[in-house]
């Protein structure tokens, strides 16, 4: 049977395939990012990329016997990278897993970021906690095509210094990358913390990021999103220039199971990336 791994699959084959059938995959590597976040590198059994994903797209991961859940994925060389915070049954099972363990993966789902729209512009990234994961997939793309983009700025917020995900990139790699400003804030500081303290929207207000030719990409918990939208609009960012990627509970990923909709839009099909202008046209139910 054709599946998403088969490069010879025609459009008709794709229509015929069982979208709910996972591909068998294995955990290539596990990196402990924070006390409750691990980064999983997932490949096929013969250590190939399971399928291509573009920044912002989603994948459905499953641990057999435990269940499935949807995650933002980022394409690595021969694997997909998925950051998982331990919050429930499936994520607990993932955190218990060891490198080499077999699992299921299907996707990719949704539309990623429209990279064309960002071409040639300055980019302001704003991320809260594990919301940095989908933003990072875009940042990786931008750094790989650096000359296609203007000035970069990242504002990241985390609960505490211990909760910095992708810490090496955040503190060592990105700050020394060409024309890339990185500011990090934590809700609660510890003794040796020398960065900002406070919530993301407040730091955005304080830093007053430049607007000219700038697109803003943000991801984080709904409360952070909504408050940051307001701050950005106060700073005169237009809703057309603000993009976010939403996460909802999902079971199918293909617009059938009925739980990720915001009005008539399905986050799995029509999202997960939306501009604020698009979101404003939808009911406030996310």
């Amino acid at each position, binding site marked *: 049977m054709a599946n998403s791994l088969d490069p010879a699959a025609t459009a008709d084959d794709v229509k015929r395939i069982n979208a709910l059938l996972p591909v068998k995959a294995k955990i290539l590597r596990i990196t402990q990012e924070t006390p409750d976040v691990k980064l999983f590198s997932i490949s096929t059994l013969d250590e190939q990329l399971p399928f291509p994903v573009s920044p912002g797209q989603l994948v459905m991961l499953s641990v057999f016997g435990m269940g499935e859940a949807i995650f933002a994925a980022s394409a690595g060389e021969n694997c997909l990278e998925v950051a998982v915070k331990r919050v429930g049954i499936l994520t607990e099972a993932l955190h218990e897993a060891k490198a080499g363990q077999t699992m*299921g993966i299907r996707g990719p789902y949704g539309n990623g970021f429209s990279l064309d729209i960002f071409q040639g512009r300055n980019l302001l990234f704003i991320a809260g906690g594990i919301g940095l994961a989908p933003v990072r997939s875009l940042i990786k793309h931008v750094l790989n095509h650096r000359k296609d983009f203007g000035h970069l700025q990242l504002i990241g917020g985390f609960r505490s210094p211990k909760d910095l995900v992708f810490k090496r990139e955040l503190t060592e790699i990105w700050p020394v990358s060409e024309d890339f400003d990185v500011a990090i804030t934590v809700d609660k500081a510890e003794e040796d913390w020398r960065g900002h303290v406070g919530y993301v929207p407040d730091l955005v207000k304080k830093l007053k990021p430049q607007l000219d030719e700038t697109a803003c990409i943000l991801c984080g918990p709904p409360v952070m999103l909504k408050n940051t939208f307001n701050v950005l609009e106060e700073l005169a960012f237009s809703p057309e220039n603000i993009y976010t990627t939403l996460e*909802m509970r999902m*079971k199918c990923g293909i617009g059938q199971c009925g*739980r990720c909709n915001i*009005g008539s839009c399905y986050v799995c099909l029509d999202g997960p990336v939306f501009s604020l202008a698009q979101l404003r046209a939808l009911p406030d139910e996310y």
Partner: protein
Amino acid sequence: MIYQIRKDDFLSWLKKQREGKKVLVPTRKEEGYLFLPWVGDELDLREYTNTLKPVKDVFFPQWETLIRYRVEKEKSGEIVEETSRTEPLILFGVRPCDAKSIKLLDNVFDGEKYKDPYYCQRRKNTLIISLGCRELGPTCFCQNIGINPLSSEGSDILLVEFEDRYLAQSGSDTGLEILEQAPFTPAESKEQKIFDELNGNPARLNEAEFRSLALNNMPDFNDSVWEKLYQKCLNCGICTYLCPTCHCFDISEMTLDSEGKRVRSWDSCMYSSFTLHGSGHNPRPTGKERIRQRIMHKFNYFPQNYGVIACVGCGRCVAECPVNFDVREALKLLGVWKDDLQL
């Protein structure tokens, strides 16, 4: 073109179909009528208005296995895709509202981009013979939302009882092929006229009219009317399980020792866990958001996405609600029910 067949002849024909095909008929049980395999005995349809469970159950079962697998510690064995039952099936006695509901579900499970192989397989293997409604049940409201109780839409063959005969109309090419052969015969002009007369007052409002009412008159998402609407709802979800067009589902795991399966089961937007995020955040935290979602999905979002209202007026939700929540009253309160219609 209308065909006809004597009831006796039809039953003999249907009996013969049991060679090689499974025939499901409305069967009277203590709790109501259910579609059950027919052993060829006499059909008791005297008090049949509709089945308790909607016919979607045949194509999109309440519970089904999607895949099977073996789990071994820190490894996992094979994943086997469960192939759906391919046994040819005849459904007799489907009401036109339920037949229409299957057409609606085709939009979701036999869509342009994604086709559900389990559903599509069953659709391909099933012949739907519907039985038109000469009388409506106490909670039926198909006609109020533009659905004809004598419509062949969604059926392969529509039968309408008339004296000792059934008048028959095809709803598909497969149905037509059957009707063109014995024991079915083309109806005389007299029967043709009778069929037309029965069909004379099909719907009090056409579907497009109701749809535009639902799309244009639906109150704002933040209107205070939604506060009123949900108060008595218990969020039990029975309306969603018994709804012929509700198609939300859950996917979960069942594992015993090393044998496991991934199953799909009906789920309900009436439950708070339905949309609960891993973080604890819930976009639809109370009954208010959930009732609003259910009504908006059927009467506003679905028509926006597929051009058709996702309600067929079968009235099961009205009949079975433990607190008498009546969707007709709700629509009236929302201003999308035609004023001159009395409940």
